[in-house]
Each structure stands twice: as C-alpha cells, then as structure tokens.
C-alpha cells in the first residue's frame, strides 16, 4: 500500500489525501506533511531552487526509509513524493502521507519519514540568488532530528 514517487511535476494534496483515506475502512487517521520552497536562504531572497538527485539510489533509500517506518509502527499506507528539477518560491517540494488505524502511529511515522528523508535520501538543493548559484549546506539541526529516532530502544 506504499507509494514512492520522484517527479518533476507538482502534486495535489487533496488527491493524495483522498487516496489514503479511501484505501481501507480500517483507516482511522491520515497525517500529511507538505514541504514548500521558502523565498529566502541565509537571510537573502532566492530566485529559484534546483533539486538534484541520484536516480536509482534515491528510490532505493526511500524504500528503505518506508520499510523502517512500517517496521516501527503499525501503518496501513505511506505515500512519499519528492519533486526534482527547478522549483520556485512557494512551490511544493515534498509530500509525506501516512494512514493508520490510530493517530499516534501516523503522527510519529510522518515525522520519522521526514527526518530520515532529510538526512539519508540522496537529494541536493542548489539555490539561485541574484543570478548566482550555490549549493545548500546541510543543517546540524536535521541530523539531530534524525538521531533522536535512534535512542528510542527499537
């Protein structure tokens, strides 16, 4: 019941939610997260954002992350969408949707999926600011967020 997609085109939150909602009458909770392109990076505005990834490996890593979430929580379905290519401020970048019987599993799994995706999946952001391109640096706060899932005893 899991769907992993890497795509250049946009996604529709309502459609993705509906797909998860209609999967099974056992679905009692759907948690969704959508990541957007901010209009600033390092305190200055950006013109655009380009997302590069490692085709083949990214899909494999996302599948591993989804498998881990399914092992940790009792879930009915996961949808994971990540866009690549050139995006503009306010564009949607990433979608995580989790359907489960109960809300705690869906909330926690959605957060886990995002934390792991941000620190393990092979995507790289390049921003364009005033006509100049530079690669975005990884953030320690993202590593810290992912690391807390290692200390929960499972």
């Amino acid at each position, binding site marked *: 019941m899991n769907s992993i997609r890497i795509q250049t085109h946009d996604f529709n939150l309502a459609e993705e939610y509906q797909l998860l909602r209609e999967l099974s009458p056992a679905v009692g909770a759907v948690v969704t997260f959508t990541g957007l392109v901010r209009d600033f990076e390092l305190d200055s505005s950006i013109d655009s954002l380009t997302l590069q*990834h*490692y085709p083949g490996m990214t899909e*494999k890593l996302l599948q591993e992350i989804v498998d881990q979430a399914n092992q940790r929580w009792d879930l009915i379905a996961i949808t994971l969408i990540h866009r690549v290519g050139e995006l503009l401020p306010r564009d949607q970048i990433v979608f995580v949707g989790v359907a489960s019987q109960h809300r705690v599993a869906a909330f926690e799994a959605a957060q886990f999926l995002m934390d792991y995706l941000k620190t393990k999946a*092979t995507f790289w952001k390049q921003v364009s600011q005033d006509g100049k391109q530079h*690669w975005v*640096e*990884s953030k320690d706060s993202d590593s810290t967020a992912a690391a807390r899932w290692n200390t929960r005893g499972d």
Partner: protein
Amino acid sequence: MANRVVGYQRTTALIKLLFFGRLGDFAKQVPATIQASTPAEIRERLNADYPDLVKELCQPQVLVSVNQMIVSWEQPLAAGSEVAFLPPVTGG
C-alpha cells in the same frame, strides 16, 4: 613508473564515476571512467590533476557508494562498478 603501470594492470578495473551536489562543480573536467581498485585509490589518482576536488572528497562528511550502496573507502571494486561521491544530502 613502469612498476606502477604493471601494478594497475594486475589489480585495477574500469570504474564509472559520479559526483553529486557541490562535488560536481569541482569535477567538471574529470573523465567519466577511471582505473582503480578501491574508492580511496580513485581519490589518490585524481589528486595530481584535480587537487581542489580531492580536497573536497577528503571532507569527513563525504560518503562514497558503489553500485548505489554506501561503502567504506577501502571497498574492493569490480570492473564496471559505478562509484558515486556524495556530499551531505539536503533534500526535503
């Protein structure tokens, strides 16, 4: 030099190279393939012509994959392997 060439013929294989993120900016002139027996040897062999790239590759956060699996820098390479150099990821 002659010994080195003999050594390469005995122990090395043709490897496909990929550089992602900011590493790609330093690797624009690097050939698509190289002969080497480990990722660490690739780094050594690139050092003469691409010292700026190799300096980046030596950063501890840079990971290396072989055929899309993260491995150690000493992983033995088979002919036709795809070796990718991965700076810290920034997706999401």
